[in-house]
């Protein structure tokens, strides 16, 4: 009787405030965020315009909003222990689709364009997810294939023609620079998406199941989780966000040429990895991926300001990705040691 009554898990002796502060200090998101703040601060000291001019402030928020969308979607897919290499091609294809909507249907409402872009991207993501889950084949191979297919479709559809700013209504293009309370609209879109997806992953049952699937897919199947449906959902979400990013791309840059989104898939994976989303799945947050995206883009812009030629930009990004995963390894090794020590202590008692 008494054995069942005693609490097997005692509440932590540390006070809640201390615990939350400690957790925050140790969290990967805060660490990456701190690096971001340092980069911005150093660059601003060198050249105050980087932050304190109206353009500087706007670009700081606006430029990462594209990669932010891709990184959030990519993070969700990576959490399920898959990967989507086709997002760059999806972005390009959707951006061209968006431009064509305006050409073919002048006067189409902008909100409809956003929705259609989202749907179109979701469809492309569905194709990936369907192939991966229905045929039980690795996402890396499938999305490598669709990377070629989507880009091929995009390029043969576009041919040598391209969408120019004159093809799109000015109200749509204004969205690319418009600000509300000094915050660009496109950034607000990105942050709203981030908040929704983050909230879903953090609280909803479906979101938590994505983590369970990523930590151990076999166990998730045995436990009876709807693994296929959830993974398919993750791919659809990733595609939809890449589609949204395509619409945002068209609004931001005004032209869509064959290079749109080229190589973005690796940047998106890189942003997620820097933000602490483990490539083995099962851990990481979209907040981290978002901060990673901000950091990647901001470093790009900061390098020329601090006097390093931006040719070196990619080298810095690469070094950063490697530093991030080495840090992950060190931290998890320390955590494992601590857990082992704690276990041994309780056994001795």
């Amino acid at each position: 009787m008494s054995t069942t009554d005693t609490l097997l898990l005692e509440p932590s002796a540390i006070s809640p405030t201390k615990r939350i502060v400690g957790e925050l200090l140790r969290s990967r998101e805060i660490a990456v965020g701190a690096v971001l703040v340092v980069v911005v601060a150093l660059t601003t000291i060198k050249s105050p315009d980087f932050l304190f001019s109206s353009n500087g402030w706007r670009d700081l928020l606006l430029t990462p909003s594209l990669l932010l969308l891709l990184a959030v979607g990519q993070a969700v897919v990576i959490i399920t222990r898959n990967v989507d290499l086709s997002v760059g091609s999806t972005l390009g294809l959707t951006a061209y689709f968006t431009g064509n909507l305006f050409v073919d249907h002048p006067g189409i409402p902008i909100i409809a364009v956003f929705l259609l872009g989202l749907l179109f991207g979701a469809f492309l993501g569905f194709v990936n997810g369907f192939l991966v889950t229905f045929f039980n084949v690795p996402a890396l191979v499938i999305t490598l294939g669709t990377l070629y297919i989507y880009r091929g479709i995009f390029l043969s559809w576009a041919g040598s023609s391209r969408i120019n700013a004159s093809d799109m209504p000015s109200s749509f293009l204004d969205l690319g620079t418009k600000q509300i309370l000094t915050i660009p609209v496109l950034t607000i879109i990105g942050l709203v998406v981030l908040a929704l997806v983050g909230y879903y992953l953090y609280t909803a049952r479906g979101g938590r199941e994505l983590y369970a699937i990523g930590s151990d897919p076999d166990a998730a199947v045995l436990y009876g989780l709807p693994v296929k449906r959830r993974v398919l959902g993750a791919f659809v979400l990733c595609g939809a966000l890449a589609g949204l990013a395509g619409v945002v791309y068209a609004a931001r840059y005004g032209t869509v040429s064959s290079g749109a989104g080229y190589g973005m898939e690796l940047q998106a994976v890189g942003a997620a990895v820097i933000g602490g989303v483990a490539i083995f799945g099962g851990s990481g947050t979209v907040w981290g991926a978002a901060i990673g995206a901000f950091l990647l883009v901001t470093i790009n812009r900061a390098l020329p300001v601090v006097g390093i030629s931006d040719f070196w930009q990619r080298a810095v990004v690469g070094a950063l990705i490697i530093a991030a995963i080495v840090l992950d390894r060190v931290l998890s090794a320390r955590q494992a040691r601590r857990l082992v020590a704690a276990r041994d202590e309780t056994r001795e008692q």
Partner: protein
Amino acid sequence: MSTSILSRPEGTTRSYPAYSRPLWRRALFTREFAVIALLVAVIFYSNNNVEFFDGPLTFYYLFLDIAPILLIALPMTMVIITGEIDLSVASVVGLSSVLVGQLHADAGLSIPVAGLIAILVGAVCGAFNGFLVAYVKLPSLAVTIGTLALYRGIAVGLLGTKAVTDFPEKWTDLAKKRVVEDHSFPMILVPFVVLAVLFVWMLHFSTFGRGVFEIGLNDEAAHFTGVNVARTKFLLFVMAGAVSAFAGIYYTLRFGSARGDNATGLELQVIAAVLLGGVSIFGGRGALHGVIAGVMLIGVISSAMRLENYTVNVINIVIGALLVLSVISTSFLGWAKQLWARRGRGSGPSSSETGQHRQAVAATESTNER
């Protein structure tokens, strides 16, 4: 623990080939054989239906074009069979190209010396990947995405958007020379054949290669059977780096131009060819003759379609579709075999034993052919 980020399909287990069957039967029902058959069919079809395909120039240019992929596919096959991946190879190609260009033009070194240094640097690049993957035990997908950016960044950083185009004709001609005048085999096939023989021996006929397959099947088990898992992986990454650097030198001389962004995206082409050639992305399965056929298949399809005036975009769609079809075809085969086995089991009371046997064989085959 599997180091691939991809989970293995549910309900499949690994088993070893049924060695009781004769060699020709084992060879006939493999992915490699299917790829070779497809390659022969495509060549045969193009020969009859595509104008100018049988011209002597077609295969000459085909080999010139696919030579870097052929070369890099050799070590990449072994890397993927261990369950790892190397996405940084094309960046090493770019870096080695820039090094050869700068060492020759600015430092005044001769091409062979500059090339040797580039290969050494390539090996060091590979060693850095290998160290992080094999000894620090980091996931290769993440590591090589990082070094993809890092090595490319160094290449672009060193040279900017400039290009070195000042190479002695002796060497640029060598890159395009034929082994025998008027025949379709370019000189680059000589080092390729030497390397291919070496790699086939290493992978399929040596203890080292046995270890490579064992690591891909189960690296812990491989460790306990005495395979030095870390050293094997490390060496494979070093080879990938060195061979990529060699491909970079060829690339530079062939086009007579050293640029930081040379061969961008080549890593995806190499990986697509290797996977098309029947190597499993989960590791543990694959053969070099299939991979060489896979590279050739992509090359032949591209050149035949180009002769028919299709743009490179349409060709990309076809290659992508081929890659997707080749991986999902194994699922179809598995289902077909299951159906076949079920039919055999239900056909009569006396056949229940043979039905079960057949099902077991089908299960073995479907996993073998994955």
